[in-house]
């Protein structure tokens, strides 16, 4: 039997980690884009629009990400459409991320004084204009630390994509374990890789938060 050296395990894990990073980045960016659109709907004061967004958010926040992955992977197949693990993972993570980011950002928007809305209203600005020129530039500053903090959750969330067969670092770990029968070593290395990805982000989020508090 071919003997796996520790070095070979590490190399293979790092290769797979690339996919973890790619999936995280793409999910975060597209989740952020969807989240921004939802944010407009969620704070629009149009009852039906807010209602629909609320249900969406409740659904994706109130069900496990794993179930959402299953729904996209197996559910869409029921309609006769072939869904690759990659596409299912991307879609599920995008929707899941958008739901959480919308709620984080809504908090930031609502933490701004009501007077900002009133002043911009009294200047004949429309809702979109108010958001674009008055509210979001201010909310953005407050939103950065919790948003960076949440990106850690997205990275860890990608681990679940291994279950539907997407080969990222966790799936690679499982495969390497099956070949080497050294679970403790393999999964320790997997955990270490996640930590190296997540810790700098947590650290940066905390730093941003401190800086924001000083600026106030």
């Amino acid at each position, binding site marked *: 039997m071919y003997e796996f050296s520790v070095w070979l395990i590490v190399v293979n894990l790092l290769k797979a980690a690339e996919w973890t990073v790619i999936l995280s980045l793409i999910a975060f960016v597209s989740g952020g884009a969807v989240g921004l659109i939802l944010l407009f709907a969620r704070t629009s004061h149009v009852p039906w629009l807010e209602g629909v967004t609320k249900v969406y958010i409740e659904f994706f926040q109130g069900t496990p990400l794993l179930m959402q992955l299953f729904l996209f992977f197996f559910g869409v197949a029921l309609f006769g459409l072939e869904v690759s693990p990659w596409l299912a993972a991307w879609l599920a993570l995008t929707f899941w991320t958008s739901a959480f980011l919308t709620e984080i950002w809504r908090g930031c928007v609502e933490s701004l004084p009501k007077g900002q809305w009133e002043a911009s209203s009294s200047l*004949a600005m429309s809702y979109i204009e108010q958001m674009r020129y008055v509210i979001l530039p201010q909310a953005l500053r407050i939103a950065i630390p919790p948003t960076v903090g949440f990106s850690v959750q997205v990275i860890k969330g990608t681990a679940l994509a291994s279950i539907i067969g997407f080969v990222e670092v966790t799936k690679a770990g499982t495969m390497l374990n099956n070949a080497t029968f050294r679970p403790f070593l393999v999964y320790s290395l997997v955990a270490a890789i996640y930590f190296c990805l997540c810790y700098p982000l947590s650290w940066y989020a905390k730093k941003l938060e401190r800086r924001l508090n000083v600026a106030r």
Partner: protein
Amino acid sequence: MSLVSIRDLKKSYGPLDVLKGVSIEVAKGDVVAIIGRSGSGKSTLLRCINGLEDYQSGAIIADGIEVGSFKTNLRELRKHVGMVFQQFNLFPHLTAAGNVMLAPTVVNGASKAEAGALADEMLAKVGLSDKNDSYPSQLSGGQQQRVAIARALAMRPKVLLCDEITSALDPELVNEVLRVVEQLAKEGMTLILVTHEMRFARDVGTKLVFMHYGRVHEEGPPKQLFAAPKTPEFTQFISSIG
């Protein structure tokens, strides 16, 4: 014809009646001072005029546009009805000039150059020519409020609503703001002010409205009213503020 016409306005928050049938006519060039105890509905009335609050019955017609009716084009209305707030509500992420330029550029489609010239003109008008590039946090309360006035003026409103604009200021800063408002009045700007500055209401106002429990209790020329109050409530109000 009146520039602003308020007819039998009624508003309630649940069981609480805030306005119980208010009627006021404001002609072009009028300086209307609305006074009264806190809770008398004066700020609510003012906020109804540019649609920040809605109301249950009656009508407000400002510059030919009916506020609060189903067809109201609030955006069109607000282009002509400016407002200055007690808490200034400047946009903290923009400079003084940026605050003034925002609505003309975004709403009226003015070019950067046009809006810049407008900002220079308006900030000069409120005596802040040298503060174009200052952020609100670098300005005193009085200066901030004057920027807020310049910001409202930049839309060239036909009527300016002032909601207790000196109430949040330190006493020594009140006059610099009042002087600006007085100058506007002299230039013929139509003003509706909710105020606690009785001397200002008497000297600058062309019309005084005393509100009491959601109704117009007394109205008329300020000097006359202050000299000879007709109702015990107004007499008491005047004496209570000394």
